């Protein structure tokens, strides 16, 4: 059987110049559910899709506040994100304590990017298995940075990470030139539409699985969850339907992320939400549950939705 002998540690290059452990870490991000970030010239918005490990379980938080001027959305291993956000919080507090000023966003991201990079160059360490979208506002205006376990930090007008995030990026690329002058409200809606594009066909944004966060000029970092997102989801429904964009998004998704089994399994994996809009009712659900079991047994292909081992990535 094929065995990759260059992926045992982070300090060995493959003959083709790759560091496999870092690439695997980037795969861990794609296992996590999607997060989208967009900037206007005054604000940054993060939206993220939360997952619950099981129907009766709580949803994993996707957005974390760092300080009044900064927060982040994560995709991948949540515990790794916790470590990084704790680090950012202490940096932020120290900046406030020593210098009486907020932490600059670029300095914050550079700090965790340096941490991530050193993990790719020291024996016996592993890269972080998480990608972050760091949103913040400082004296230079609003900023959105993407942090990756490779140690890269890039600033974006709009970006998306996590499962099926290519669909969201496609939406952002089509619309990014209008973001700059967007109002906060329009910006949030753009974010939600982009996030909705990442959903499999049978899933919807609900007040339970959607997180929204905003930060910007005269706006402290605020996370909207549960009841607070309901009005935004209502606005989303009234401003745009999800018409044929679904198809294009799915096509992109399959082509560019190489996840081939999503659609069918996602359609089957309907046990998640009891208030599903599925009009065929409980009989169908029961059938689906059976299918689901069958699927779990045959999930060696490695798709994310039904494999219990993958639940740790959010």
């Amino acid at each position, binding site marked *: 059987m094929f065995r990759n002998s260059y992926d045992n540690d982070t300090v060995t290059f493959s003959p083709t110049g790759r560091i496999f452990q870092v690439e695997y870490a980037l795969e861990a991000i794609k296992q996590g559910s999607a997060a989208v970030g967009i900037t206007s010239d005054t604000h940054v918005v993060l939206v993220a899709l939360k997952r619950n490990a099981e129907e009766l379980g709580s949803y994993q938080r996707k957005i974390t506040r760092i300080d009044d001027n900064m927060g982040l959305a994560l995709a991948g291993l949540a515990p790794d994100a916790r470590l990084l956000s704790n680090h950012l919080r202490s940096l932020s507090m120290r900046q406030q*304590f*020593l*210098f*009486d*000023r907020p932490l*600059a966003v*670029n*300095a914050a991201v*550079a700090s965790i990017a340096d941490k991530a990079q050193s993990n790719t160059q020291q024996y016996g360490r592993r890269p972080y298995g998480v990608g972050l979208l760091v949103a913040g506002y*400082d*004296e*230079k205006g609003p900023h959105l940075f993407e942090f990756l376990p490779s140690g890269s930090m890039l600033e974006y007008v709009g970006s998306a990470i996590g499962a099926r995030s290519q669909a969201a990026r496609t939406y952002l690329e089509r619309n990014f030139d209008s973001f700059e002058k967007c109002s906060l409200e329009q910006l949030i809606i753009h974010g939600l539409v982009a996030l909705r594009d990442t959903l499999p066909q049978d899933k919807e944004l609900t007040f339970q699985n959607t997180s929204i966060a905003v930060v910007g000029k005269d706006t402290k970092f605020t996370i909207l969850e549960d009841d607070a997102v309901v009005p935004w989801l209502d606005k989303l429904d009234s401003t745009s339907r999800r018409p044929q964009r679904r198809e294009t998004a799915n096509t992109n998704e399959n082509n560019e992320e190489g996840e081939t089994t999503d659609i069918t399994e996602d359609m089957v994996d309907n046990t998640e939400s009891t208030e599903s809009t599925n009009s065929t009712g409980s009989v169908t659900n029961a059938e689906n549950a059976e299918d689901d079991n069958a699927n779990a047994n045959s999930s060696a292909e490695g798709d994310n939705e039904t494999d219990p081992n993958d639940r740790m990535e959010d």
Partner: protein
Amino acid sequence: MQHTQEKWGRPRDDVYGPYDASYLNSEPRTQTLQPTVTGTSVIGMKFNNGVVIAADNLASYGSLRRFIDQERLIKVGSETVVGVGGDVSDLQTIEEIMEGLEISESYDEPAQSLTAPNIHSYLQRIMYKRRSKLDPLWNALVIGGFKNDEPYLAFIDLLGTTYTAPAVASGFGSYLAIPILRKLVDREGDQQNVSKEQAVDAIKEAMKVLFYRDGRALDKYSLAILSKKDGKPDVEILKDVRVENQNWSMAKQIKGFGTQDE
């Protein structure tokens, strides 16, 4: 033959003499318990468009005029001046700390702006940390600059005690200069009615009174004028400014010390 264990492996007393334990009974390590070479008052006041700070160029060794060219105003970053009174070696420490701050701030790209409130906060933390180590930096600091385009003026002492005010002074200046400066800026906001020229004149007058009455003062001083020009901070540090129009005719009225015929 050494019978007792505590003697084993130690130099023999009959060859090397008994162990000299006197260092164990010496005084503990001491920090600065008093300043040695010192600078006297630093004074500062706000005006409608900025801040003026002055400190003379004397470093005294006790009552001796030891160094007459000590610069005591430090420019930090692009728009802040820190005036330092008290121990001069600690002044040099603060200079080094400020230089280190400027360097580490310039690492970030793009760099965040480093303004007077930031430097004030940082120095206050340093002063309080040092006093908490029972090793204070024996200084009084006056920080002048801008906060959101408004003039900013603050004071810190060797305990880390700090405040902001439209007129501040350290040492003898708090008795002799503050009343003169407060004629113009008594309360926060009064600086709106004070022009740059008025402020500079008041500071010069205060430096004159300080030279007359403070035995550790010099008639040569540095004057920093921080103002906003077209919304941009402008820092002008005048060096070797002299106390002008001195009038010592009252000197012969003073009795009670020195050589006097009578």
